[in-house]
């Protein structure tokens, strides 16, 4: 089922949670909504599910207006962050729930429901847990049961809220691959919410980066990584070094910064901001350098360094320790930027303040 969202806004009291969302998801696509807490991604997911209602905007699925449909009539599979398994029901009953609550007219026969539950449990490799209760399961097992329960009703759209958020790293990686497999086997249009970039990029066909109620960028991993569309995406993708530069005929320049590795850009002349990842910055000892090393730390494999300039500008660099030049605290250095994103100051969103975001309003 293809999903079309247009002009969607939503506010909780005075907080704008969604500020005009336009998004198309193709039939059978696996899309990640990626963003920090408070970006509105969970709210958007809940609106698609019918657990939350927008103030304005459209939501249509396969041409049908879903804002006219109650959650229970949308036939969606929703997997909750903390699974929300029914604690007093066995795994089998949890999975069969969506079938047993159907109106008698289109409720499958008992035997059929049992067969469907068995089939799903086998598919999800949890058939040995059929008679256990949720309290007796591990996090990963609960996750599978939650997914099985959602899949039992043959959902038109599968929605997952931070599906791996509560699991530890090793299980996460396993389940990720496994979820991709499930998606390919069922072919259902799937949207999942995450704040973990790696998860989003590894799993999704397309990633939707959200920030403060807006869609900042939609794309594939490489696109978003190499060409962030906004300063927000640049920061979110780890380009935490932010320096003022001056653009002249497509080239950026700043005191003490070697920016010759950057390609020319079709940007207007004037002041701009440069966003770079610490790993894309090289530090070299330079007696005439205007940067001074203020701290130096080693993680064993890597050397992390911060440097300041007389005007107060601050930069971070990260490099493999082996082969790194001999650097000492207080020494003058020069910095070379290997890759960066540049946004002219004139653009409105460069002025977006980097404030701690309000806590995401769940539910």
């Amino acid at each position, binding site marked *: 089922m293809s999903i079309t969202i247009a002009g969607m806004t939503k506010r909780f009291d005075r907080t704008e949670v969604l500020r005009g969302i336009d998004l198309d998801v193709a039939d059978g696509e696996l899309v990640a909504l990626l963003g920090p807490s408070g970006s509105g991604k969970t709210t958007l997911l809940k609106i698609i599910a019918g657990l939350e209602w927008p103030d304005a905007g459209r939501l249509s699925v396969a041409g049908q207006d879903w804002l006219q449909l109650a959650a229970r009539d*949308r036939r969606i599979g*929703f997997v909750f962050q*903390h699974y929300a398994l029914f*604690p007093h029901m066995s795994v089998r009953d949890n999975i069969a*729930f969506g079938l047993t*609550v159907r109106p008698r007219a289109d409720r499958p026969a008992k035997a059929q429901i049992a067969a469907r539950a068995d089939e799903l449990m086998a598919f999800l490799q949890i058939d040995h847990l059929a008679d256990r*209760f949720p309290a007796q399961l591990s996090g990963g097992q609960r996750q599978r049961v939650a997914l099985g329960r959602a899949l039992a009703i043959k959902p038109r759209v599968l929605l997952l809220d931070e599906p791996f958020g509560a699991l530890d790293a090793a299980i996460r990686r396993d389940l990720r691959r496994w979820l991709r497999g499930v998606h390919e086997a069922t072919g259902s249009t799937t949207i999942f919410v995450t704040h973990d970039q790696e998860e989003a990029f590894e799993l999704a066909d397309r990633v939707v980066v959200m920030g403060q109620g807006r869609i900042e960028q939609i794309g594939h991993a490489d696109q978003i990584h190499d060409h962030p569309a906004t300063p927000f995406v640049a920061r979110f993708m780890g380009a935490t070094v932010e320096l003022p530069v001056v653009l002249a005929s497509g080239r950026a320049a700043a005191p003490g910064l070697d920016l010759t590795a950057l390609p020319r850009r079709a940007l207007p002349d004037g002041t701009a901001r440069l966003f770079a990842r610490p790993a894309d910055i090289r530090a070299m000892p330079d007696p005439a350098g205007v940067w001074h090393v203020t701290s130096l730390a080693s993680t064993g494999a890597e050397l992390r360094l911060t440097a300041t300039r007389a005007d107060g500008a601050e930069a971070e660099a990260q490099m493999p320790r082996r082969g790194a030049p001999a650097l000492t605290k207080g020494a003058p250095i020069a910095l070379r930027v290997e890759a960066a994103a540049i946004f002219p100051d004139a653009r409105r969103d460069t002025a977006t303040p980097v404030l701690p975001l309000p806590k995401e309003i769940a539910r």
Partner: protein
Amino acid sequence: MTATAAPFRAKRVLPGFTLSLGTTLLYLVLIVLIPIAALILKGAEIGPAAFWAIVSSERAVAAFRITLTAAAIATAFNAAYGLLMAWVLVRHDFPGKRILDALMDVPFALPTAVAGLSLTALFSANGWFGQVLHPAGIPVVYTIWGIALAMAFTSIPFVVRTVQPVLEDLDPSLEQAAETLGATPWQVFTRVVFPAILPAWLAGCTTAFARSLGEFGAIVFIAGNLPFETEIAALLAYIRLEEYDYNGAAAIALVLLGFALVLLIVSNILQSWAARHREATR
């Protein structure tokens, strides 16, 4: 190292485990266990045959029957009303909610005699409610309904206060999950919410029932206390005591104690049953 470190360990809030445990145990023994033991010993003194003669006497049986019936009526009422009240207090927001919430504790705080007096005044033939009910052929005062009414009044907080926290803790995503799976609001309640609060609700009802069996102060004013008609067991024990019939009083009291113990055990079993799946709701 550990030996020298031990004296510097952070102290607990209350001084000394031995002292605090000792104090509480002593208190428990003096206030609870010794009186109960005395009662049981007193009952044992009577001997089984005499004991049986007392408790199976016509008047005692009638008193037990009346007490149990009225308590059952009161509990049935409280089961329904208390559940609704807890639901309203947890699930709805309205002006005065906190006042209503606080009012739920009034039966705990109010002297039961005061409750009995005011109920009698309201329901007597010329009281506010009584002057409507009486002509309609529904006498409340001096009937078993009056007893049940007084019992219901004093035991309602037990149901509300046991269901309320469980309902508050219920993860809202459980209901949302049921909804997305196609459940109607009624199905969400019967299949998801009610099973979750059932153990607490039953435990609350059991405690309310136990409390009703033992209620005395509120009832004696409204019941009329007619032997065989509206005389409750606790009152009969009191009357026997007034007649210096210590054995009679102790025997009846022992039966009440037995009921209370059984109900307490039932309530505890229900509560541990409630704890059975609790971890999973997190």
